[in-house]
């Protein structure tokens, strides 16, 4: 019984964000970028191929993710977040995403 109590007292019920909420917020951030055409944005858009963004624009969007979800994204991982599904995947799986 002490174990149950300890479990309840220490760990939060659910770490991170649900996939749906992650998707909504990611889409919102990408739409907020001035160079993005919201009509072309879908669930599976690739930033550089589908939306025609530059690599520096991708850097700006990734920085937006870092600030919105209060995450630390190291450089190697940030190089790979090049599309909406990749970003949603990363954010939904991250335990510390707010």
């Amino acid at each position: 019984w002490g174990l149950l109590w300890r479990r309840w007292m220490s760990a939060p019920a659910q770490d991170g964000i649900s996939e749906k909420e992650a998707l909504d917020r990611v889409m919102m951030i990408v739409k907020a970028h001035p160079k993005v055409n919201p009509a072309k944005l879908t669930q599976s858009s690739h930033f550089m191929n589908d939306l025609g963004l530059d690599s520096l624009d991708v850097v700006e969007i990734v920085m937006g993710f870092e600030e919105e979800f209060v995450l630390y994204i190291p450089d190697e991982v940030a190089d790979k977040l090049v599309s909406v599904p990749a970003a949603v995947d990363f954010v939904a799986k991250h335990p510390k995403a707010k």
Partner: protein
Amino acid sequence: ASLAARRDAQRRRVCRLYRKALHHTLDWVIFREPFYKEASKLRARFDVNKDVVDVDAIERLIVKGEAEFKKFQHPEPYAVPWSPEGVTYARNPPLPAEVCIFY
């Protein structure tokens, strides 16, 4: 070819330089509105050299940019607290399973 690999490496260097420069600009300029202005200026400076094709010229520009960044760095950059550069890193490591806390 190795040329494509070199260009790839240069692209990555430019992206990382831009990323660090943005973060440190946010550290210097703490409020959002002036930060957006400074970020636009920084982006304009990067965009001036957008169409350079020669690999050596790009290399020289990157080296110049990195030297300038070294002078521009913020002495105490903000990092997310639980990140390796942050303040709370490894502050409260999770307890082993044998330990029970009774309140």
